[in-house]
């Protein structure tokens, strides 16, 4: 039997699809704990897993993004990048 604590169901992170996102900034208003805006109005998302008490705000931000650009990603899911220079 595993002694590990059960994985919290909310062990998720937020990701933004940078192609879909059009800087409506709704998300930063709804979830300022984890989303701030850069100088041009595009969201900068805190990549840490979201603790349960913040999940309602996260869900609201995801649901209300007018472009459906914001979504949850499993903690293990790799970032948006494929291959790169480094």
């Amino acid at each position, binding site marked *: 039997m595993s002694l590990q604590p059960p994985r919290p169901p909310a062990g998720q992170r937020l990701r933004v699809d940078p192609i879909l996102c059009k*800087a409506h900034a709704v998300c930063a208003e709804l979830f300022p704990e984890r989303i701030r805006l850069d100088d041009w109005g595009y969201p900068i998302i805190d990549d840490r897993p979201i603790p349960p008490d913040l999940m309602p705000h996260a869900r609201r931000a995801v649901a209300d993004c007018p472009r459906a650009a914001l979504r949850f990603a499993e903690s293990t899911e790799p970032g948006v990048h494929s291959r*790169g*220079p480094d």
Partner: protein
Amino acid sequence: MSAPVRIRPVAPSRLLPTSPQPEDLAAHVAEFGPRPIVGSALIAELDRSGLVGRGGASFPVARKWLAVAGFPSGMAKPVVVADGVETEPASVKDRTLLALRPHLVFDGIQLAAEAVGATRAVLYVSRGGESLMAALAKAQRERPGGEVYVEITGAPTRYVAGEETAVVNRLNGRTARPSVVPPRPFEAGVGRRPTLVNNVETLAHVALIARRGAAWFRQVGTAGSPGTALVTVCGGVHAPGLREIAFGQTVGDTVEAAGGPTSEAGAVLLGGYFGTWIDARGAWPLVLDHEALRAVGASLGAGVIGVLPRSACGVAETDRIIGFLARESAGQCGPCHVGLPAVSELLHSVTLGRAGQRSLETLARWASEIYGRGACRHPDGATMLLRSALSVFADDAGRHARGHPCGASRRAPILPTPALPAGWR
């Protein structure tokens, strides 16, 4: 005072012919022997060889091939794409290899197709090189029968058109712009089939390893970075152009092999426009080895070494390159297509001495905020270049920012930043 004697490891020419004549099939077979039939056993041999991709990311070849070969049965068969578009303005390695030794690349494509079970293959090259496309079509007509047919496809001459999701999009009839992953090409690429994208130089090494084996490949290079690589040396050197390097030799060896600096070198741009500036004193003894370069935050990237004379202005040079990269954004992701032009504009006013004291802090903040926020790594490359410039040229940048631009910033550019034709089709 006489110059110290330098013992230079001379890289064996594995990929580069001594003759500037394009090799036809007969000459190719005379030189290398016929292409062996290896099948999927080649993947294990590539794993032993330690070959990593030469398209910029240095990804282990065998690992990518395994991912593509491991497609679920019942799914459509894989596609192999040879990426030869080479839009890095300073780089000439892929087009030169394709022009001089096309059959080495065609061999690599066939070996890849047989190893991963692909039934479709594409050679993706820049549409700007019309004569190259014609020469490749001619070489293709010489190929023996029974091979997977290779479609030669022209790509628009845009900087990000060679990024692997852009390649897949183009081959799927869309514009040659990147898309968000997953799915990665090996999961769902051309026609949603598992798709292997490899650089053409990578495939040429494959063609040699299939004939001579992993142990032969490892006879040169270092334990962690075996083999040779094609490198374009440009900027302030006496004999700029293409060189084949053996991993383990230094940046200094490589610059000397290109005739040495035309005047005292101030800095080296390692890796191309996605690369990093390194002060010349630090760069010269730097060993070309993936691990050693990573330790100093650098990489060989797509194999470009640009030498900047001490008399040139690193701020102005970086300004032009960032301007180029900002123009080459695919215009899809805010942090890239809005952020990079803002960076470029501010850096340009730094160059002109009009930006003010706080501008360098703003540039550094933007660089770290933009990094990692595009669908592809285009903005990451641009911001890494900027960060290295702010550190290596810190004194010069400070003087520019305080309103004292140097005279050198008005001189002719050392590194090319062409205006590429518009359009993504």
